[in-house]
């Protein structure tokens, strides 16, 4: 395989403004569904597999497991690409759903979730992310740290429109996988408050994201 070619694809994508970048991946995924082209698959893999792995590392501390499931997710991308419809969801959304479902299916046979007390106000998670990247080597450190910093800012940016409690509820739902009752126990607030907070957050997310759909 020509990895330089796909590396270049990724570089170009990274330089595009977010909406164009998103459209770029939508197009590649659509075309993968029609043509089953391995080069396009490799491009999707190189961009999304490390992100899917990072997402799954929120739920399992076992690096090898997160990596295996990330590969499984991308295998599903290959198998199901013909079902992808760019008019209904962005490629990143579609792949998020595949990764989410694979994790849910696995979790069912055993409660594998690890206890996570990190929240996004805490710099600990940023620190760990940097360490993970640094330990593995091969990547220019300042660049990796920069990437982690930028991504963290982006997550914070996504949640910035929400009041603190709602942001925390949304974070716990998406990145800690916690149910209403688990969140209520975590934060020591009534389950009714969790639901009303998430209901308000839903409206805000709908306003900020829903318009493009």
């Amino acid at each position, binding site marked *: *395989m020509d990895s330089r070619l796909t590396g270049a694809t990724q570089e170009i994508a990274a330089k595009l403004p977010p909406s164009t970048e*998103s459209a770029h991946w939508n197009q590649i995924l659509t075309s993968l569904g029609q043509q*089953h082209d391995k080069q396009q698959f*490799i491009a999707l*893999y190189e961009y*999304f597999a*490390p*992100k*899917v*792995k*990072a*997402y799954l590392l929120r739920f399992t501390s076992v690096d*090898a497991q*997160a990596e295996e499931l*990330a*590969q499984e997710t*991308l*295998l599903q991308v*290959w*198998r199901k690409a*013909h079902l992808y419809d760019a008019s209904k*969801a962005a490629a*990143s*959304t579609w792949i*998020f759903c595949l990764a*989410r479902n694979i*994790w*849910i299916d696995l979790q069912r*046979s055993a409660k594998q979730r690890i206890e996570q007390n990190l929240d996004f106000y805490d710099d600990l998670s940023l620190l760990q*992310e940097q360490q*993970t*990247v640094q330990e*593995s080597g091969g*990547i220019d450190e300042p660049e990796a740290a920069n*990437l982690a910093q930028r*991504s*963290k800012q*982006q997550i914070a940016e*996504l949640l910035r429109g929400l009041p603190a409690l709602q942001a925390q509820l*949304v974070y716990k*739902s*998406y*990145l800690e*996988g916690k*149910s*209403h*009752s688990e969140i209520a126990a975590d934060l020591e607030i009534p*389950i*009714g408050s969790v639901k*009303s907070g*998430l*209901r308000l*957050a*839903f409206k805000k*997310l*709908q306003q900020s*994201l*829903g318009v*493009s*759909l």
Partner: protein
Amino acid sequence: MMSPKHHPDEATLLSYAAGSLSAGAKLLLDCHLACCESCQRKVAQVEAFGGELLQAIPSAVMHRSIDQLLAKLDTPEQLQALQDGQANVKPHAPEWLPEWAQQLSPWLDHEQKDKDLWQRVAPGISQIRFDHERFAADKAVRLLRIAPGTCMPKHGHSGSELTLILQGSYSDETGRFCAGDVADLDPDIKHQPIADRDTPCICLIVTDAPLRFEGWIPKLMQPFFGL
């Protein structure tokens, strides 16, 4: 597609999109979504937030090479065969299970006759419990069949209760619930459902904490519900 009138709470839809519902609640939502376009749209909106998160999240480093995975990729012919195979799978299910709720079928014991599946818990009320370890995080996942006109004991909840109507209908203080409708109740709500008169009401109920019955006679029934 049908158009149910009662829907899950938006907080529940958000948790579904986030992948953080318990297995039982997710199963119930899967069924409702299969028959409700308006909830499908709402879920898609909050799934889009998941997509944004995925793009924003710091990339982890992959240690394995992609070559192993590339070797596993199906050829276009194999992909075609895979698609054809899926189209031919026809689940075997009891007649009372609507098309949109076929996801429940794997949890029913198909070895048994339908009448043996249902376990009587009180006059006019029988149930099928889903006891698989997959539902360990739920307090209870069960199907309830309520004879026409039967009045359920008035009860509140210490946790949340999700109910999906599969067949028939019932009414309570909050309205009339028909096939496809979901009642998504907060812990503080007390209600007394009454099955409507025409047909038995069959519903899927997922609770995340024990129901609390009022009065001593219904309390006697509590053990029968297995809660």
